[in-house]
């Protein structure tokens, strides 16, 4: 299969117009010794039927089961409308809207996206999307250093461990010191935060709900950060929680939008978002769409504040980001339009079902819900032998959750579990039943 329309006859005519005999003559500028003499060692071409079978056979090797695994990638129901809209090829085959006159569809939907993000986070300005939550958080940490000129980042140990790693990768480049704040009862230990925060602290980073599913005391943390003249960065990984929870009086809010109408897809693509208070507008990375007027005075939308960006400012840009996750942000925009105010009810359903699961699991003899901080839709269960629980549940076609030891050696035999609106009561009852039966 190839997608080249040119016939041999046309090719000859074109070569004639150019004034060469053969297509390979167009590669004279490459040193002879660099031209491949052998074909690439890549399998030979396939027809569409063959390629479909090949890729399908890979997809079939994956095992799908009832899953209670969340941990930064969630199973939520996706209304059919979402994928229908993002499958419109006027959207998915377009580039970044550089020519606004023929890109109003993309531009207006990004403007709507920015409005959704601002309304959900309580911030004044949002950009058009980031790669994912983790890189958005890393850029926010760097931004806090740019704003405050301070070099220390305090990050709660309850922030998603993969996000923490990315923050550290980025911060290392600027010799920023990243200090982790321990947790107590599943939430950030505010006493320890008070002890660590000092004149050098650019920002305090909190995930809410945190990696353990616990809801942080944002009011108290905000006070500690702001009394010290440090910025507060909150990070939202389970975005459905925004239907119910406040994002806190932060200076920068970042997050991942996978929960807004995007399937897990082995961790990507979804989208990251970033929003901030107005005074930080010109420090934001990435694309931003603004409203303006056209030559006839009619309303329209355009990429704006580009003096922050790499194509204008080059080495002085606020970030290097160029391509973002626009189509996924569109999925989020359509999802939020579909849900609207009902996002709150959806969040409540998630929370109620989770509480139901917690109550049942807590009654089992060999299991214990370890943290009593309020939770949203994830929780930590202590058991005798996490490996065995995972194996036994798997035999019953259930994915138990995440073995926390992978990221927290101190939490051996602790599982992180997640319940969403996709789980029925009988799914939860079955889970509990199998858990109970494990000896």
């Amino acid at each position, binding site marked *: *299969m*190839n*997608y*080249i*329309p*040119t016939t041999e006859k046309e090719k000859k*005519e074109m*070569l004639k*117009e150019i004034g060469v005999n053969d*297509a390979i003559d167009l590669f004279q500028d*490459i040193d002879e010794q*660099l031209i491949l003499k052998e*074909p690439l060692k*890549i*399998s030979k071409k396939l027809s569409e039927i063959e390629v479909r079978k090949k*890729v*399908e056979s*890979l997809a079939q090797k*994956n095992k799908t089961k009832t899953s209670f695994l969340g941990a930064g990638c969630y199973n939520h129901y996706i209304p059919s409308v979402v*994928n229908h*809209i*993002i499958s419109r*090829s006027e*959207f998915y*085959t377009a580039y970044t809207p550089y020519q*606004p*006159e*023929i*890109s109003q569809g993309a531009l207006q939907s990004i403007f709507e996206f920015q409005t959704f993000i601002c309304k959900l986070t309580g911030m004044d300005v949002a950009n058009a999307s980031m790669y*994912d939550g983790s890189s958005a958080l890393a850029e926010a940490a760097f931004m806090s250093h740019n704003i405050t000129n301070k070099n220390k980042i305090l990050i709660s140990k309850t922030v998603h461990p993969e996000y923490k790693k*990315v923050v550290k*990768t980025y911060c290392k480049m600027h010799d920023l010191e990243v200090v982790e704040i321990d947790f107590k009862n599943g939430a950030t230990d505010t006493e320890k935060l008070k002890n660590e925060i000092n004149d050098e602290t650019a920002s305090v980073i909190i995930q809410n709900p945190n990696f353990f599913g616990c809801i942080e005391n944002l009011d108290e943390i905000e006070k500690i950060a702001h009394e010290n003249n440090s910025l507060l960065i909150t990070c939202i990984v389970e975005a459905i929680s925004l239907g119910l*929870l406040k994002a806190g009086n932060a200076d920068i809010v970042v997050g991942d939008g996978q929960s807004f109408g995007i*399937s*897990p897809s*082995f*961790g*990507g693509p979804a989208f990251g978002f970033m929003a901030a208070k107005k005074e930080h507008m010109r420090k934001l990375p990435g*694309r931003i*769409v603004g409203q*303006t007027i056209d*030559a006839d005075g009619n309303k329209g939308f355009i990429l704006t504040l580009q003096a922050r*960006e*790499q*194509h*204008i400012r080059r*080495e*002085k840009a606020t970030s*290097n*980001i160029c*391509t973002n996750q*626009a*189509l996924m942000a569109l999925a989020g925009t*359509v999802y939020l*339009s579909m849900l609207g105010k009902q996002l709150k009810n959806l969040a409540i359903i998630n*929370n*109620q079902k989770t509480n139901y699961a917690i109550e049942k699991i807590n009654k089992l003899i060999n299991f214990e819900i370890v943290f009593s901080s309020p939770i949203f839709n994830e929780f930590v269960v202590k058991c005798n032998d996490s490996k065995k629980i995972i194996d036994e549940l798997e035999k019953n076609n259930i*994915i138990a959750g995440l073995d926390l030891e992978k990221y927290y050696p101190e939490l051996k035999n602790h599982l992180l579990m997640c319940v969403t*609106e996709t789980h029925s*009561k009988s799914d939860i009852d079955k889970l509990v039943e199998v858990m109970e039966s494990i000896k």
Partner: protein
Amino acid sequence: MKIIFEKSSSGRKAVELPELDVPMKENSIPESMLRNELDLPEVSEVDVVRHYTALSRKNFGVDNGFYPLGSCTMKYNPKINEDMAVLNGFTQAHPLAPDLNPGCLQLMYELEKDLCEITGMARITLQPAAGSHGELTGVMIIKKYFEVKGEKRTKILIPDSAHGTNPASVTLCSMEAVEIKSNNQGSIDLEDLKKNIDKDVAGLMLTNPNTLGLVDKNILEIAKILHDNGSLFYCDGANLNAVVGISKIADMGFDIVHLNLHKTFSTPHGCGGPGSGPVGVVEKLVDFLPIPLIEKENNEYSLNYNLKNSIGQMRAFFGNFGVMIKAYTYIKALGAEGLRQVAENAVLNANYLMSKLKKHYKLPYDTICKHEFVLSDEGLPNNIITTDIAKRLLDYGFHAPTIYFPLIVHGAIMIEPTETESKQTLDRFADVMIKIKQEAEQNPDRVKNAPSNTPVKRLDAVTAARNPILKWEGKC
């Protein structure tokens, strides 16, 4: 057109949530943690569908017509790729359950192997989410490489024709970007390179073929100058489309390369993303790649976190896996033969269009090009400038080329036709460009006031930036 928030009608719904099938309990979350308002629109399903369908009709994609946006490789995006990316076995795969998803690991492993073969690199990370994210990864590797060697090198050389992301990526690594001049043939000025090379130079980032659509004739010599100095040679591989299957990046002397799967490997751009920006390295740098890498042993796939000098992790999980599926499907469909035809035909199309247009527009670098070529607006009559040409093209149903980049060409008009366009399309585009040139002579106002048959007229960018309106301020 109103925005979706303005279409809200109190009490209207688009989705029916499932009834709560567990006993409703009192709220267990303290009041102080709850939000007090949720000002989102209330619309119906048909409202949403009509709204976004209407918006889509104000948007121009490759499926709507010719999109010669230079440096962006706007080739046709095969439909089978889209179908493969939404197979249930993939979309439902959870990244923290790799053992349950060997199909995902195998796909990534095989994609890496094919990309290694295409570039000649030893290993490749698929983690970066876009080209620029790949550049950042690459520069971090360069920085770490010298740290481990115990050398303090702070500078990265970048030609003046480079994409803005190159210097911006260098700054993000707290290194210094030093600009190198291009000569009158569009290549790196070797004298300027030699003047700037010293023991502070960690590397040079070269876009290859470069943003003028040219392969640097001195590439092997540049590699030698760098390597003799102990510096690394980085390839911005965004333009790989011109040489895929013809020549290997590693053979040219590069140590690191990033690729844009959303260019050469046909994955769609989605109004600006998602992309995927894999980074390949030569053997001596494998140890520095982000973790994890995927390994295969006895037909089993596993994750390798054990890289001694790894720069760390660039993003959560494995990258934009869904985009990788599309690139994988594309490579498997084309095979070795098809990939080479891509380069040959992309270069054929670019040279054909260039030879037709250079009779009418100034072509500052008049030589065989690769995937694209760059015209200038110098010498156009009646003060017609590049913007005017670009906007008038919209009236004729084409997307505009990339404009005002690279910066070294006055009023640059950067045209990349790609291999998936037919001779008829190229002829029609050339005819229209020639016609616009005539209009510029005979009816300049027509061109100055273009576009006239698009959903909006020229937009006021100055007002947008001076008085930013970045969200809807109303209440639903």
